[in-house]
């Protein structure tokens, strides 16, 4: 083999090895939402979905709608570390934003749903969320003439739980982060980011390794990692939380659910060892508006999140390594996340619920 061929081979091997260890995903600007073949978007359907989203009939005691935990004013979160819950019960996880759910391959922190149509019914049925019997809900809504008309118009049929979920999903797919400085920058507007945000982008894609998992248009790889996020102390000794946790574990056929003391994460769904305490990579779009952070809301600010990743994540995790970011790099990274990733604020006119 000639000497230059050997050099080329060595160089190629080096590139391959480097790619294997350092991978920064490609960031993409928003360019539209995926077309929904099974549940086509129509203005009438999204409007119906919006009405249902704000309708408290969807909860057992009439006090909660989807918007209770996904408030438009709080970037479709509830701003709590642990999500609000059905009266007298306690939730166990943070309420994730609905912004850009249209892009998610998995829903919920543990990814138990693969479509919004499937997802939408879970909280309604959940004893510690909306606690609604769906057979009863169907009959209730069938007594509301405006809904009967709307479902006939939109679906050419009667009210069913599946169509309720389809309408809500259609509405949720309209909640998209657009026109952020990052979008404009990626489309070629060099002035869209401040110098500090540009530095932050370099950290994001380089030393900070954020883009290893947060890439694509939604800044998420749709995968699950066990980062060993610290436990939320507020959850540990609350019997109501223990009841919630063990109830969910029981539903998912976790054998030792009555001894469960911590959130098993995706393990509950897959029963795979590597998924123990693993949670979905969330979007970073509009991240400045969706505090507090992580599946249990234990990190209150972006500074805390950056410090957590800089330390190499939680104790004993195998997914992350310490980053060694300087204070300036952390500051620039935060600036990037706050300035560059915030899209136009989604303003929702509250609908008149029939």
């Amino acid at each position, binding site marked *: 083999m000639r000497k230059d061929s050997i050099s080329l081979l060595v160089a190629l091997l080096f590139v391959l090895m480097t790619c294997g260890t350092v991978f920064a995903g490609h960031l993409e600007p928003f360019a539209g939402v995926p077309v929904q073949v099974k549940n086509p978007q129509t203005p009438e359907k999204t409007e119906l979905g919006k009405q249902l989203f704000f309708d*408290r009939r969807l909860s057992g*005691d*009439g*006090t*909660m709608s989807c918007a*209770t935990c996904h*408030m438009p004013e709080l970037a479709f979160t*509830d*701003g*709590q*570390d642990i999500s*609000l819950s059905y*009266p*007298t019960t306690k939730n166990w996880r943070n309420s994730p934003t609905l912004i850009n759910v249209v892009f998610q391959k998995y829903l919920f922190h543990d990814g138990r749903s693969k479509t919004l149509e499937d997802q939408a019914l879970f909280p309604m049925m959940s004893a510690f969320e909306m606690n609604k019997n769906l057979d009863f809900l169907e009959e209730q809504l069938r007594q509301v003439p405006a809904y009967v008309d709307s479902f006939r118009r939109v679906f050419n049929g009667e009210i069913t739980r599946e169509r309720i979920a389809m309408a809500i999903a259609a509405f949720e797919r309209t909640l998209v982060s657009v026109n952020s400085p990052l979008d404009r920058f990626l489309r070629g507007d060099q002035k869209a980011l401040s110098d500090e945000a540009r530095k932050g982008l370099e950290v994001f894609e380089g030393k900070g390794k954020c883009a290893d998992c947060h890439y694509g248009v939604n800044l998420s790889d749709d995968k699950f990692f066990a980062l060993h996020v610290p436990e939320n102390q507020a959850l540990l000794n609350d019997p109501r939380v223990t009841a919630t946790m063990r109830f969910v574990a029981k539903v998912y056929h976790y054998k030792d659910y009555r001894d469960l003391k911590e959130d098993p994460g995706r393990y509950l769904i897959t029963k795979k060892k590597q998924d123990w305490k693993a949670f979905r990579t969330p979007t970073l779009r509009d991240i400045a508006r969706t505090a507090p952070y992580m599946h249990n809301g234990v990190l*209150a600010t972006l500074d805390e999140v950056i410090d957590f990743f800089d330390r190499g994540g939680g104790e004993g995790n195998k997914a992350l390594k310490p980053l060694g970011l300087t204070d300036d790099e952390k500051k620039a990274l935060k600036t990037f996340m706050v300035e560059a990733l915030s899209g136009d604020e989604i303003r929702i006119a509250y609908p008149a619920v029939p």
Partner: protein
Amino acid sequence: METYKGKVRLVIKNYPYKYRDYSHMAAEASLAAGDQGKYCEMHDLLLKNSPRLDRDSVIRYAKELGLDMKAFTASIEGFKHAAIIERDKKLAVDMDLYNTPTFFINGRKVIGNRSYEYLRKIVDEELKNAKR
């Protein structure tokens, strides 16, 4: 309230949960204690001991607070504050409120049980705005 003495006024409205047996009793008990200057103390005890809010329990809490038991018992058994509680409930419904607790901090609506830090941040912001 101690931190913001002279700067903040706290107004509490009753909104007993419609599906709990003893929530109205608890509202009556806190207002009855309030007649004897122990509203906050009773309020704290009720939250701490929830859901044990039956008649015997609230009477026990009243004794703990050293209240005049004759007056307290007559108040809760005679539903002395029912009109106030009903008025507050109507106000909540008129304002389309369904979650407890719901706070209005200088008009800013905050739903759900929040940490002190969370509320303090908003109070500080509103005090700053008020000074302008």
